[in-house]
């Protein structure tokens, strides 16, 4: 019989044991009778020979090795029975632990899926990305195509692949549609060690200028346009005015910094930037060669870096190339937020546990007499401790299971709340690790809130415990309970201060001047018709036509074009200098460069400080001009009025551009992000002066910005109708209002403040419940003492003060400890959240008074109850 069936057939085993021993006794007795003993005497002798049947049975049971399981079963049953007597206690405990464990499990699921689980590539740890670093620019992820090719050919430690963004209109087969695309080098799929769902990856010979045009399409596009038909392979696809043959379907869920629908070979791109060593727009991914470490790869890349800088000092000097692990780069934006949230949730869970522990402790103290009785009857201490812990573990486990279910249900709604997109969002789900974590956490919590009361099992002074019953000495009770209250208050304090810091930061940030007037501004990206794009000479008039048509719509006040809308993704950073001769390469200042049409300033409501903005006379062929912001003027010339000065930029060629105006600074990187950016200067170029060879590239990124007289989204429909174009293949996309963009730039701060607000509120509530519970219990224990005091002449006010003083002492110690902890936690929070303001004395003052007030309010109820005790009744209870 195996272990399990022995346990399972426990009842039958017991019967058989009984029967076996009975047989033995009977047999022995009948033998004795046969030898002449009287039946009574025989029975007695037999029994003496065997020893106490119960002891023998007990030892036989021990031999079964199922002892602990049986006891566990017994304890569980006992626990469940005792729970039935206290449904309120059980419901509270279950709710609190389910909440705590549920919230922690949700956060852990995210951390597990996003940060811990390996990427869905083979040997994901060996995939790296290459970054550049410049003193004035910080770390960036783009390289020029010639540099990329040189690295690709020179590196022995890395297998290098490159890609970049593209986009265009698919005009056949089917209705025209603007889609995002990626240009990828032939090595990208081998580097990631993935292969297309159907078809084949690009070949090296296809990754060259003039090779046969081939394309890979996304799984989504394949489903949408080709209804998932395998015959899509080999079909023609007209993308961005060029005809490609579809040779592969990308695996479902394949992403490169977001989803894209069309992938074409990078080497075939006719983008003029491809030959420009200064145009850093290629992202570089690589796989470490077998046996090569990250450090070795970095050493080799640094060497290539030095050679490139020597060979091409104009473009490559001052750039440091860095090899970074891929996963780390992918998740670095959310890394901090996730850990921050799980720490906060962990604190709430801990407070919940402390709360439940103190509930359990209150129960254990009132059960002291029962436990003392059981010890007196021979129960072992270990056995009683085990029983107490079993009880809390059962409760915690039930709470945990509830919590895990709640987490499973709320995971996706929570992800929808997340500001922006979570990286690897499609990989987020619960797995066995999450389950183990949830169960483990519950057991840990159970152990935590069961162990403290369990260790109270009396071993000494049994007699006193039995005689004293529930009425033990108050001082010891107080000593026992105050750590719980103190730690709850301290932890709640830390969460409140964090929430206060976040709230304060959010308030400060949202009151910052964005540098523009975001009200009633609509922005949208716009794709010109592919056959216009195909002929760059048509492009300027096509854009002019777009603006003219937009202005015809009623309620449109101003309309302008801009290549990068503030606070949206994307940036174009150029070097600049105030003298014709270049400074040392790594000391060049950089500025954000935007190309815009004359009405841009009016659309965005950016203040003009000096001079003028562009007008219709600033066009191709006229003198090249630039408008700078106050920061650039201040940094470059040390004054605000710099109209008439010249600027030079390597990117613009040897001729200078004249500054014709100075405008206010715009918080381009978002209300929060702008201060963190390394580039603070801004300049604006007239779109009309963009060189013809670059018009195609610019046209693919241009946005249209419109100031309206009404709610901006009202004009979306007429705008779309008006701009469809003669062949109906022009489309607006990424339609957003400036107010949305400004709001979204604080989304992370707002999201964190909201969550922390909720956590802090929960913590405060739990702490107050804890204070109330403990105080009510302590006061209840002191009933007779208070009765005596009142009989001796103490008034209700004195009694209230007596109780409040007790609670105030605990609260103050808690606040003091909390202040120390909050001081320690502050820098941590500042490190994790960008733009976080240091904690202010005001925040502390508010939090301290809030906490003390709330805790005193919680203690007021038991205090009041104590003050109305009838001394006669209280004394009679004794």
């Amino acid at each position, binding site marked *: 019989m195996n272990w399990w069936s*022995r346990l399972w057939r426990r009842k039958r085993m017991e019967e*058989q*044991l009984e*029967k*076996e*021993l009975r*047989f*033995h006794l*009977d*047999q*022995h007795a009948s*033998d004795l009778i046969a030898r002449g003993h009287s039946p009574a005497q025989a029975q007695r002798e037999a029994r003496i*020979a*065997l*020893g*106490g049947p119960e*002891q*023998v049975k007990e*030892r*036989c049971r*021990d*031999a*079964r*090795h199922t002892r602990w399981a049986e006891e566990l079963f017994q304890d569980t049953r006992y626990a469940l029975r005792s729970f039935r007597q206290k449904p309120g206690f059980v419901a509270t405990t279950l709710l609190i632990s389910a909440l705590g464990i549920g919230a922690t499990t949700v956060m852990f699921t995210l951390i597990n899926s996003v940060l811990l689980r390996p990427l869905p590539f083979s040997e994901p740890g060996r995939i790296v990305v290459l970054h550049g670093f410049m003193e004035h620019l910080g770390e960036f992820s783009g390289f020029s195509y010639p540099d990329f090719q040189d690295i690709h050919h020179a590196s022995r430690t890395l297998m290098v692949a490159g890609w970049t963004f593209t986009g265009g209109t698919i005009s056949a087969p089917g209705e025209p549609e603007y889609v995002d695309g990626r240009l990828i080098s032939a090595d990208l799929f081998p580097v990631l060690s993935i292969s297309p769902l159907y078809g084949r990856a690009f070949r090296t010979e296809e990754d060259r200028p003039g090779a046969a045009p081939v394309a890979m399409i996304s799984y989504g596009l394949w489903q949408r346009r080709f209804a998932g038909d395998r015959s899509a392979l080999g079909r023609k696809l007209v993308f961005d005015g060029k005809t490609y043959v579809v040779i592969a379907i990308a695996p479902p869920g394949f992403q490169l910094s977001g989803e894209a629908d069309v992938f074409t070979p990078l080497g075939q791109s006719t983008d003029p930037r491809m030959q420009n060593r200064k145009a850093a727009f290629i992202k570089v991914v690589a796989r470490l060669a077998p046996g090569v470490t990250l450090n070795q790869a970095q050493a080799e890349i640094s060497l290539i870096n030095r050679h490139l800088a020597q060979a091409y000092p104009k473009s490559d000097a001052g750039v440091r190339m860095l090899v970074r692990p891929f996963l780390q780069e992918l998740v670095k934006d959310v890394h901090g937020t996730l850990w921050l949230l799980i720490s906060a949730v962990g604190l709430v869970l801990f407070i919940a546990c402390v709360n439940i522990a103190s509930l359990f402790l209150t129960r254990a103290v009132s059960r002291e007499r029962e436990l003392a009785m059981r010890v007196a009857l021979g129960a072992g201490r270990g056995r009683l401790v085990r029983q107490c812990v079993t009880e809390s573990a059962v409760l915690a486990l039930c709470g945990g299971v509830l919590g895990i279910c709640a987490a499973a249900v709320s995971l996706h709604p929570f992800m929808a709340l997340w500001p922006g997109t979570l990286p690897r969002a499609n990989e987020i789900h619960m797995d066995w690790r999450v389950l183990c974590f949830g169960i483990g956490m519950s057991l840990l919590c159970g152990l935590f809130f069961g162990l403290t009361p369990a260790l109270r099992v009396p071993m000494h002074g049994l007699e006193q415990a039995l005689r004293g019953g529930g009425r033990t000495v108050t001082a010891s009770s107080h000593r026992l309970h105050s750590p719980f209250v103190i730690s709850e208050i301290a932890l709640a304090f830390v969460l409140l201060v964090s929430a206060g810091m976040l709230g304060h930061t959010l308030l400060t940030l949202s009151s910052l001047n964005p540098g523009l007037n975001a009200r009633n501004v609509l922005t949208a990206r716009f794709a010109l018709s592919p056959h216009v794009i195909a002929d760059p000479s048509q492009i300027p008039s096509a854009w002019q036509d777009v603006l003219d048509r937009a202005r015809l719509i009623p309620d449109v006040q101003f309309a302008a074009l801009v290549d990068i809308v503030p606070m949206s993704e994307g940036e174009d950073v150029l070097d600049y200098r105030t003298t014709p001769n270049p400074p040392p390469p790594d000391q060049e200042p950089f500025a954000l460069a935007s190309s815009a049409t004359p009405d841009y300033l009016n659309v965005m409501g950016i203040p003009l400080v000096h001079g003028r903005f562009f007008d219709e006379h600033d066009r191709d062929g006229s003198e090249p001009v630039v408008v700078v912001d106050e920061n650039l003027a201040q940094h470059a010339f040390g004054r605000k009025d710099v109209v008439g000065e010249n600027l030079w930029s390597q990117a613009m060629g040897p001729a200078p551009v004249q500054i014709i105006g100075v405008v206010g600074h715009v918080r381009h990187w978002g209300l929060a992000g702008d201060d963190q950016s390394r580039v603070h200067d801004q300049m604006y170029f007239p779109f009309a002066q963009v060189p013809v060879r670059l018009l195609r590239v610019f046209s693919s990124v241009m946005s249209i910005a419109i100031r309206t007289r009404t709610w901006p989204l009202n004009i979306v429909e007429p705008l779309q109708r008006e701009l469809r174009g003669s062949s109906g293949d022009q489309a607006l996309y990424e339609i957003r209002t400036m107010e949305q963009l400004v709001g979204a730039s604080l989304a992370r701060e707002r999201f964190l403040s909201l969550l922390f607000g909720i956590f802090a509120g929960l913590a405060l509530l739990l702490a107050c419940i804890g204070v109330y519970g403990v105080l009510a219990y302590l006061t209840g224990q002191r009933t007779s003492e208070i009765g005596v005091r009142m009989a001796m002449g103490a008034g209700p006010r004195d009694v209230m003060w007596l109780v409040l003083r007790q609670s105030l002492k605990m609260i103050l110690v808690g606040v003091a400890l909390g202040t120390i902890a909050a001081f320690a936690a502050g820098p941590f929070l500042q490190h994790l959240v960008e733009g976080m303001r240091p904690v202010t004395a005001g925040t502390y003052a508010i939090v301290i008074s809030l906490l003390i007030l709330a805790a005193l309010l919680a203690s007021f109820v038991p205090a009041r109850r104590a003050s109305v005790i009838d001394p006669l009744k209280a004394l009679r209870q004794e």
Partner: protein
Amino acid sequence: MAVQKSDLPQGTLDLLILKAVAVEPVHGYAIAQRLQQVSGGVVRIPEGSLYPALHRLENRGFLSAAWKITETGREAKFYRLTRKGRKQLETEVASWQRLIEGVGLILGMAKS
């Protein structure tokens, strides 16, 4: 005539039980009886320890048990040696023999 009784050395009870069961399936009471008779009354099985030992040996797979009718017509639990038990018996007998030889040698030396 009172036979001098000896306490069983530690760990020998299992060996004796295995030996007693080796011949044929037998119930607990009979094991006690048999051991006492065979040893001429020298070995007295502590009956209180007998059943826990039987259960332990059963758990470890040295014995298997079945309920059978005795000659007196009652149902009793009969223990039988398993193959694993037989092997265990052999090793235990061997090690016991070695022990006796060793102890004998020591005692012999002491005499001379």
